[in-house]
């Protein structure tokens, strides 16, 4: 990739990195996506099931329009996109330059297997003698030293685990394509000097290193070492600290003068550890304590060797950088309370449990007891392991563990047919996200999972039952013990490995917890301009929030690209020249790829070619050399271009890997992209014929015959793209609406902003400061000033959306203005941000006394001075008023933070006030946990209550009286506070039904229904309509802005181009056959079909159609057809396959 203006570097190929990359690529921006691991997907590689569907669904993130630009298969298996260059096993070494013109230095880690040549046949695995724990299955199963990093990747290439590999060379010899290079020569050229006065240490260390494939020499004294160093070149030195004559430190000093870059490892006895540590200060790489484990020593040298070997550096010019480095799951240690982890096999972490029961896991999807393979009857989950732990320096909530534990408990129930007893031991059940509470209730009430508020003291081995025995205290403080078959530790998130090095390389600051620091109200802006952060690297998010934040980050990057004149929006790509073949009869060329050139292969290819010719399936059959290499493709493209055939079928291996190249091939031959295809003629059995090659040949012939039949029937006629109105309309002038409007307008597109009231700002007007001390008022004034003066924003104040019609790319909306007049706005995309408001209540005697007020009223009076903390003695706050129970069964997410903020404010102003917070679960997710800790330290009293023992309030004499049961004290508290503050939560604002006008559906609580909670969190089910702000779900200011930016980014994906085409696979209607039964309309999950009552015909919205084929299945007589997959073509494919096989 050339990089340059208009290109963005994305660091980290997890879910947020992929989302950011796709966002930018869809907009026409070139993206370099680097990932230090050998495969994409991050933590999601290992998660088979996700909340709330308990299925996957990652593929829903794939582009909805211009689909042919990228892959259209399971995203968890990998992906490609013509605008994204994916570089695996690659890290960022340095980032220089300024926003808009950064120079990134990338370091590529050798994997010893050439990804271009590896065909994934697996012959190497058969001969590899070494087994090592499989990281994919969290170490719960074994794999060979040469292995697939992720079993389900497509295409899938092997890599060598250098630490486990014994360099026997067996794989190198057996690889049929010569893809493996263990670099034994390079390794032998890596010279190590071992310096020790003790013969036995010297010799055995040298021997171990030679066994590991390195070249080692030994010196018995400091003097000898210096002599050798001056005479020859060494790459590394292992140096004893204590030697007679010249000691290790002295040698180190001299060596550093001679060869400053040579890594030196100190070897030390226990007594001289301090000296070794000192040595590190003057340049030693590390130290080993004698007697050392040979493996540990070799591993350390291996590490030095690997960094030495990383000569593969490259430079890249980019406009912006997105860091989505993810997180590291925490490993339980004794300090944080390991609960028997490591000592008992039946105690495992959450991620291990996911793999333990995973379909590709060690038990092929069965739930068995790790210690003996027996039946699992009882499982316990222990929450907050490694999170909310001050001793462990983790004063944060990991935000995801409550939900993943609930999900795992539900999965365990499902796997066991409901028989397993599943119990979750928790402090606060943090169901703060959209739909979380309902999910918990379902799992608790329907599936029967037990939720036990408790503190787990310890887990010990019950000798008699050979099972973990758990000791815990319940909410009342009573001690219990219980034996389980399995104990799962809900381990949280830690900053990723190497976070500080990465932060240094990128030039961003980290926060005290070690995650990436973000600035102001943004969740994606870092301390370095031009560098954005997405996902868990900025701390503790689930998939949905990561995806939202990835949208926010890509918007930031895209704005920078735009402002620096990258012009990504208009660039687009030149439509390739096309031969007019509409009148030519189909003529098919089949190219067979020659791989090893062995006699067996020749014979097989000849047999295949003859069969293809005999069957009359091709007009021209020829062979090409090694398509896996660039030359192969070039020659093929030349041959095709020179020939007269108008359809090309490539028979090779790994057809998925060629999908991108196939499109290029078609372009070279000036053919429509759907007239070229690739099929697998190698089969899963490898390149060489097995004992009976005939099976592979027959399968190959069938594949070619079918591929040929499909191409013959492919429709060559071009389909014009759809014209887009490059304007947007935003409804709602709160923080989300203004942010979205500005984001779109800043990209140069006209944006209409419709606000129902006479002033902009929405809820920002009511918030005086945030819990982090930020000033929303400044934010609001800044936003309003920019919106009001923006040349691309047209403001409609006191206005409402009366009606809207049209489809994605072309909406017509009538706006009714304040003076009663109307105006029609044309726009290609819509962002709905109608917001939320404080709920109304009649509970807890609200309205009966001036001393009972809502949290917002309290904050307003506190700020205006109407309430002075100095005059107060006692304040009670009640959380979850009317919330998380029937009627309004969701958490409003912001009330706990508001209560903590105001409680702290009171305590800071007047430490003598008694502040009671009556709560059900404190939702101090993520970094809010630190404020919860702070509040408790400040003396705020937290009293937990449950739904069946709600506080009782009376206000008979004008002063509230609160009676509540304190479970910890075990008695009832009778409080007479000066003020009773009610956290009433958030309800969506109807905004005059604006959302409905755009066909946005709402969930059972009245919030917008997004297309998919995790994967398409800001899309509505209606194409071209995007959702953000509090109307989507209750959120903080920063979180609302993130949804707005993500929604704006999605909207730009629609209006950023003059024309958009859908994909080749789009459904059509053969009107003469159509009976207008409308079954296709009902079947279409994308709302892409409807009946035009006047014309009496079914119409398809090409941009909304995703080519899923549901309509063609619903239609009995093929009046609904999928372009490129008509009955004729499909039946000829079946015929061809049967002809070839029988």
């Amino acid at each position, binding site marked *: 990739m050339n990089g340059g203006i208009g290109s963005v570097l994305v660091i980290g190929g997890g879910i947020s990195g992929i989302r950011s990359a796709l966002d930018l690529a869809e907009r026409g921006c070139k993206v370099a996506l680097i990932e230090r691991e050998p495969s994409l997907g991050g933590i999601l590689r290992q998660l088979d099931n996700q909340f709330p569907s308990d299925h996957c669904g990652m593929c829903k993130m794939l582009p909805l329009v211009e689909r042919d630009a990228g892959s259209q298969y399971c995203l968890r298996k990998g992906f490609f996109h013509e605008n994204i260059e994916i570089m695996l096993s690659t890290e960022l070494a340095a980032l220089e330059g300024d926003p808009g013109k950064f120079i990134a230095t990338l370091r590529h880690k050798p994997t010893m297997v050439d990804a271009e040549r590896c065909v994934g046949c697996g012959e190497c695995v058969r001969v590899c003698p070494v087994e090592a724990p499989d990281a994919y299955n969290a170490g719960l199963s074994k794999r060979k030293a040469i292995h697939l990093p992720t079993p389900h990747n497509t295409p899938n290439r092997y890599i060598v685990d250098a630490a486990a590999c014994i360099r026997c060379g067996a794989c190198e010899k057996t690889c049929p394509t010569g893809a493996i290079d263990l670099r034994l020569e390079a390794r032998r050229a890596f010279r190590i000097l071992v310096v020790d006065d003790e013969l036995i240490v010297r010799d055995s260390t040298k021997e171990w290193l030679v066994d590991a494939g390195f070249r080692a020499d030994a010196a018995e004294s400091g003097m000898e070492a210096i002599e050798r160093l001056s005479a020859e070149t060494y790459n590394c030195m292992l140096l004893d600290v204590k030697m007679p004559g010249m000691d290790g430190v002295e040698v180190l000093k001299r060596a550093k003068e001679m060869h400053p870059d040579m890594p030196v490892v100190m070897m030390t006895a226990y007594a001289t550890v301090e000296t070794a540590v000192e040595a590190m200060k003057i340049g030693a790489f590390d130290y080993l304590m004698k007697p050392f484990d040979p493996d540990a020593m070799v591993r350390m040298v291996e590490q030095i060797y690997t960094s030495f070997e990383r000569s593969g550096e490259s430079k890249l010019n980019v406009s912006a950088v997105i860091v989505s480095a993810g997180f590291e799951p925490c490993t339980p240690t004794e300090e944080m309370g390991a609960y028997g982890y490591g000592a008992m096999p039946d105690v495992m972490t959450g991620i291990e449990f996911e793999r333990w029961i995973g379909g590709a896991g060690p038990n092929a999807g069965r739930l068995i007891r790790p210690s003996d393979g027996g039946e699992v009857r009882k499982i316990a989950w222990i929450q907050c392991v490694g999170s909310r732990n001050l001793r462990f320096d983790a004063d944060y909530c990991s935000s995801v563990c409550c939900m993943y534990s609930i999900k795992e408990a539900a999965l365990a129930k499902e*796997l066991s047919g409901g028989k397993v007893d599943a119990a979750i031991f928790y402090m606060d059940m943090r169901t703060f996200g959209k739909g979380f509470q309902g999910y918990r209730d379902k799992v608790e009430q329907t599936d029967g999972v037990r939720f036990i508020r408790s503190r787990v003291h310890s887990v010990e081995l019950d000798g008699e039952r050979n099972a973990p025995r758990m000791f815990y205290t319940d909410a009342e403080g009573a001690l219990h013990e219980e034996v389980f078959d399995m104990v799962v530790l809900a381990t949280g998130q830690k900053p990723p490995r190497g976070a500080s090095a990465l932060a240094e390389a990128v030039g961003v600051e980290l926060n005290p917890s070690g995650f990436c620091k973000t600035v102001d109200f943004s969740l994606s802006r870092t301390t370095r301009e031009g560098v954005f952060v997405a996902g868990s690297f900025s701390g503790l998010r689930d998939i949905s929030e990561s995806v939202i934040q990835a949208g926010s980050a890509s918007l930031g990057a895209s704005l920078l690209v735009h402002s620096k004149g990258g012009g990504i929006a208009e660039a687009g790509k030149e439509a390739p020249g096309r031969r007019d073949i509409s009148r030519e009869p189909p003529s098919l060329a089949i190219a067979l790829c020659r791989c090893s050139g062995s006699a067996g292969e020749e014979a097989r290819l000849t047999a295949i070619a003859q069969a293809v010719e005999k069957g009359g399936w091709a007009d021209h059959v020829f062979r090409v050399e090694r398509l896996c290499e660039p030359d192969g493709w070039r020659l093929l493209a030349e041959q095709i271009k020179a020939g007269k055939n108008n359809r090309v079928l490539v028979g090779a291996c790994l057809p998925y890997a060629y999908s991108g190249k196939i499109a290029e091939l078609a372009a070279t031959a000036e053919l429509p992209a759907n007239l070229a295809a690739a099929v697998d003629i190698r089969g899963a059995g490898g390149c060489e014929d097995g004992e009976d090659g005939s099976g592979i040949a027959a399968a190959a012939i069938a594949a070619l015959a079918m591929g040929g039949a499909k191409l013959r029937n492919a429709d060559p006629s071009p389909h014009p793209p759809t014209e887009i109105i490059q304007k947007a309309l935003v409804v709602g002038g709160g923080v989300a609406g203004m942010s979205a409007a500005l984001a779109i307008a800043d990209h140069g597109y006209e944006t209409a902003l419709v606000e129902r009231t006479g002033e902009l700002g929405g809820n920002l007007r009511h918030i005086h400061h945030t819990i982090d001390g930020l000033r929303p008022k400044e934010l609001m004034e800044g936003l309003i000033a920019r919106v009001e003066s923006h040349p691309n924003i047209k403001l409609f104040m006191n206005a409402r959306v009366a009606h809207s019609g049209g489809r994605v790319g072309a909406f017509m909306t009538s706006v009714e203005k304040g003076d009663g007049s109307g105006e029609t706005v044309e726009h290609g995309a819509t962002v709905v941000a109608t917001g939320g408001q404080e709920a109304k209540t009649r509970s807890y005697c609200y309205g009966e006394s001036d001393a009972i007020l809502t949290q917002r009223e309290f904050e307003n009076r506190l700020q205006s001075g109407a309430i002075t903390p100095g005059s107060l003695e006692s304040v009670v706050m009640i959380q979850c008023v009317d919330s998380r129970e029937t009627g309004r069964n969701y958490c409003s997410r912001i009330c706990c933070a508001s209560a903590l903020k105001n409680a702290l404010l009171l305590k800071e102003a007047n430490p003598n006030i008694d502040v009671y917070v009556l709560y059900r679960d404190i939702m101090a997710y993520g970094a809010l946990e630190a404020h919860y800790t702070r509040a408790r330290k400040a003396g705020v009293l937290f009293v937990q209550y449950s739904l069946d023992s709600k506080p009782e309030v009376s206000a008979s004499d004008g002063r509230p009286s609160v009676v509540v049961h304190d479970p910890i004290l075990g008695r009832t508290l009778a409080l007479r506070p000066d003020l009773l503050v009610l956290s009433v939560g958030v309800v969506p604002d109807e905004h005059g039904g604006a959302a409905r006008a755009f066909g946005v559906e709402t969930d059972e609580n009245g919030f917008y229904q997004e297309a998919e909670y995790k994967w398409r969190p800001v899309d509505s089910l209606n194409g071209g309509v995007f959702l953000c702000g509090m109307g989507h779900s209750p959120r903080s200011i920063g979180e609302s802005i993130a949804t707005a930016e993500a929604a704006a980014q999605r909207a730009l994906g629609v209006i950023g181009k003059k024309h958009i085409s859908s994909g080749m696979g789009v459904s059509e209607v053969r009107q003469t056959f159509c009976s207008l039964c409308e079954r296709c309309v009902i079947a279409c999950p994308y709302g892409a079909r409807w009946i035009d009552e006047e014309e009496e015909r079914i119409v398809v919205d090409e941009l909304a159609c995703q080519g899923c084929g549901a309509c063609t299945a619903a239609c009995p007589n*093929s009046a609904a057809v999928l372009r490129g997959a008509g009955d004729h073509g499909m039946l000829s494919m079946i015929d061809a396959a049967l002809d070839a096989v029988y």
Partner: protein
Amino acid sequence: MSMTAESTIRENNAITSAQLLFRDMLLEGGITALLVAQHLPMKNTVMPTLITDPDELRAVDPFAPCYSMNTAKVVSKLTRKSLESPIAVVLRPCEIRAFVELVKLKQGCMDNLLVVGTECLGAYGNRDYPIFAGSEPMAATLRFYEKAQGGTTATVNGLEMAPACKACEHPVPENADLVIGVIGADMNGPASVTAKTEKGKALLEKIGREQSAQSSGREAALAKLMEERIAYRDKMFAETVEATSDLEKLMSYLGNCINCYNCRVACPVCYCRECVFTTDVFDHDPAQYLRWAKKKGVLKMPTDTVFYHITRMAHMSLACVGCGQCSNACPNGIHVMELFRTVADETQREFGYEAGRSISEDPPLSTFKENEFPEVTARTH
């Protein structure tokens, strides 16, 4: 004016009382037109007719044990768009049930439509009916009921009624506004009329009729009828399953199919404008036949027969009401009804759906249930 068409028919029997009812509906009930079966002149058969003239009811016989076609198809043609003025249609239970399916498939509309259902004791196949009816078809109708009240197995003139009717467990109309009762009734007296909906009630009021009492023997007669039919049906299911238990047997079962597609033309719920089997999809290249023949050495012609029936089963077994028109239409005597009913019984049971039962019950393939058929949609586990 005489209300009878034939001298042998006594005044005020079931047929004439029905004619009187229809006349009142046209004259006073605000009904513009009436779709009802009548005996055709010069030809010994019964066909649906659309009548607007109250004086043209002489040959009307809604009870004739003849089912030349499933009238739902005709009603669909009349109601593909909303009717502008009220029309009444007189249908057998299987015709109403087929029409209900067509409405759900947007091939018909209930607006301004008054459905008059007749209770049904069965009918003869198209080849048997003329023999049965002889020269005095109306008298034959009344004679049929005398015998048929005795049960399914009753034979009249040595002729047996159609197998579909013998296996039919829906002698009582569902989803009708008015029901004309014959079960357990004396056909030589006036037929009973019952309103089942507000629409039906309003009409009876309009023409100044009371709801007539049902015959005392009705319940017992119905119970006996149902018992016999269900026994016949279950035996038929078992025999058909056995006769088609593997592909060989199925091919033999359908062996003499000639691709005339009469069954799909006769089928009331096969609603495609043009069947996919008559489109270019099955216009095979002539050379293809030879290729197939060469592969196997012998190729039974015409091809695509089993494929056709299986496809039709996939397309319409969930809407199959078991009327038996397919068997009625088959020139080669293939037991199409038996096969389709057997398959439909299973597919409809799988979805908890019954074709024709209710207008508000969505067809199974037009509804999405996330957790349906876990054994098919297998989770990762």
